[in-house]
């Protein structure tokens, strides 16, 4: 039992880091632009299917695909920003407008995936996919370990960007008070475009890594990841980028540890119970400071 629990904790932490990165992508977009990216999971699946195609075409594995998918998603982010940002910001309620816009985009992406790749589950072979590290009583699947490692590296790079670079500081300043930033001479529109590009680049990374962590991908998985991203950022704190990492860890651990004591199908329920308790006790999330607008 103890070994099982230990494995569940380690697995929960590994998945929590991946969930954390999924949440960070959504949280940065929300924090800077008040854009609720309801298509987050679908973009992830698009990234995952692109990794699948790159594997079929050029034999690239999931990690190698990141180097192709990431720049494409960055450009896609800039394009989406140019298409929708002004229109959404000029609406009476940018949050609702963005929610509806991206809900529409999520439907389009799912349809495009079904059209191109069909509904059959797909997988990307990885040289070490069947290898596990065995440390004492604990089995660590190498694919998931590498995924968590890459996510941790990405989170580290994002943290350095946000806390050490001037542009990152501008991003944090916009999250706190976008009007004040504009009066200080910072072009909010330009920084927002960059953030949209970075947000989708993060999605590209997580999309490619999904193919490494799970044996199969399907077109309808996107909604699950969007829900996880929402859950993670509400747990961690809306608009606080690194709060998402904490939220991801809480969600990952709750999902994994609860599966030791109850049927696996019920483990998401535990995570949602934690979410409901969090909303009741600390609505601003673990690292958030206010419960409504920041």
């Amino acid at each position, binding site marked *: 039992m103890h070994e099982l629990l230990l494995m569940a904790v380690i697995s929960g932490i590994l998945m929590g880091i991946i969930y954390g990165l999924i949440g960070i992508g959504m949280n940065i977009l929300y924090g800077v632009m008040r854009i609720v990216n309801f298509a987050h999971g679908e973009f992830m699946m698009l990234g995952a299917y692109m990794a699948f195609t790159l594997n079929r075409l050029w034999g690239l594995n999931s990690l190698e695909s990141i180097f192709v998918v990431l720049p494409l998603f960055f450009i896609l982010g800039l394009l989406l920003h140019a298409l929708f940002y002004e229109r959404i910001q000029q609406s009476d309620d940018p949050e609702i407008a963005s929610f509806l816009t991206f809900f529409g985009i999520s439907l389009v992406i799912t349809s495009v995936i079904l059209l191109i790749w069909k509904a059959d589950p797909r997988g990307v072979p990885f040289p070490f996919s069947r290898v596990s590290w065995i440390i004492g009583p604990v089995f660590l699947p190498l694919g998931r370990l590498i995924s968590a490692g890459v996510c941790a590296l990405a989170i580290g790079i994002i943290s350095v960007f946000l806390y050490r670079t*001037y542009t990152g500081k501008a991003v944090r300043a916009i999250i*706190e008070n976008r009007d*004040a*930033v504009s009066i200080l*001479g910072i072009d909010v529109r330009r920084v927002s475009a960059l953030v949209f590009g970075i947000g989708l680049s993060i999605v590209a990374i997580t999309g490619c890594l999904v193919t490494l962590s799970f044996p199969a991908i399907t077109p309808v998985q996107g909604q699950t990841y969007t829900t996880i991203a929402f859950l993670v950022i509400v747990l961690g704190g809306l608009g606080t980028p690194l709060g998402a990492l904490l939220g991801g860890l809480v969600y990952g651990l709750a999902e994994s540890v609860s599966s030791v004591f109850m049927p696996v199908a019920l483990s998401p329920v535990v995570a949602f119970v934690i979410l409901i308790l969090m909303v009741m006790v600390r609505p601003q999330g673990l690292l958030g*400071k206010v419960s409504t607008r920041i």
Partner: protein
Amino acid sequence: MEPLLNVKNLEKSFGGVKALDGISLAIQENSVTAVIGPNGSGKTTLLNCINGIYVPEKGSITYRGKPLVGRKPHEIAALGIGRTFQVARVFKKISVIDNVLAPVLRSRKSPARLREQAVQLLKRVGMGDLAQHGGGDLSGGQQKLIELLRAWIAESDLILLDEPFAGVHPALKARFYGEIREMRRMGKTFVLISHDMKSVYALSDKIVVFDLGRIIAQGKEQEIKSDKRVIDAYLG
């Protein structure tokens, strides 16, 4: 002499209410112009039109001969117009020194030199030991000083001060006076909105009085004090 800032026939309405009703104002370089008036007379709306937060329906604003209406706030800031707010807009989760450096994020100057300058400015106003604290740790008065230091480090030539002395401790207020006078010696120009008449008289060269979106009087201290329209506006 061509004024630094020239406002002509400015009009701005909110719903059916005219917040600015044909305001014309010339601000000379290296001067302190105080704008006073009862609450709701349009003083802050004027500042918001100057730095691009509001777009006026009519009239023009030129700064060093360049039109400002239609430009975005960040473009106006880049021209050399700084601003402080009635409720200071300091980033609470960002360090005090980075708050001071916020307007020079895209500067071509060496980041190390700018950082050193920010440290010196913070020391100058007695906040050197607070450099690494979060903006949220500062008192309201200290936050207002940070806004002034931002205008200093950004080398803004025209600084719009919106109620800088409201709710500020007398010791900090004295420091504010000193810094404004020093910046003026450096050639800076100020537009000062304040209800604190002692500060207005102590600092300004010219006083402009607003009421219901119009200028009802302008001149020096004695002219304003003896103007019947000003007395009526304040006392009803």
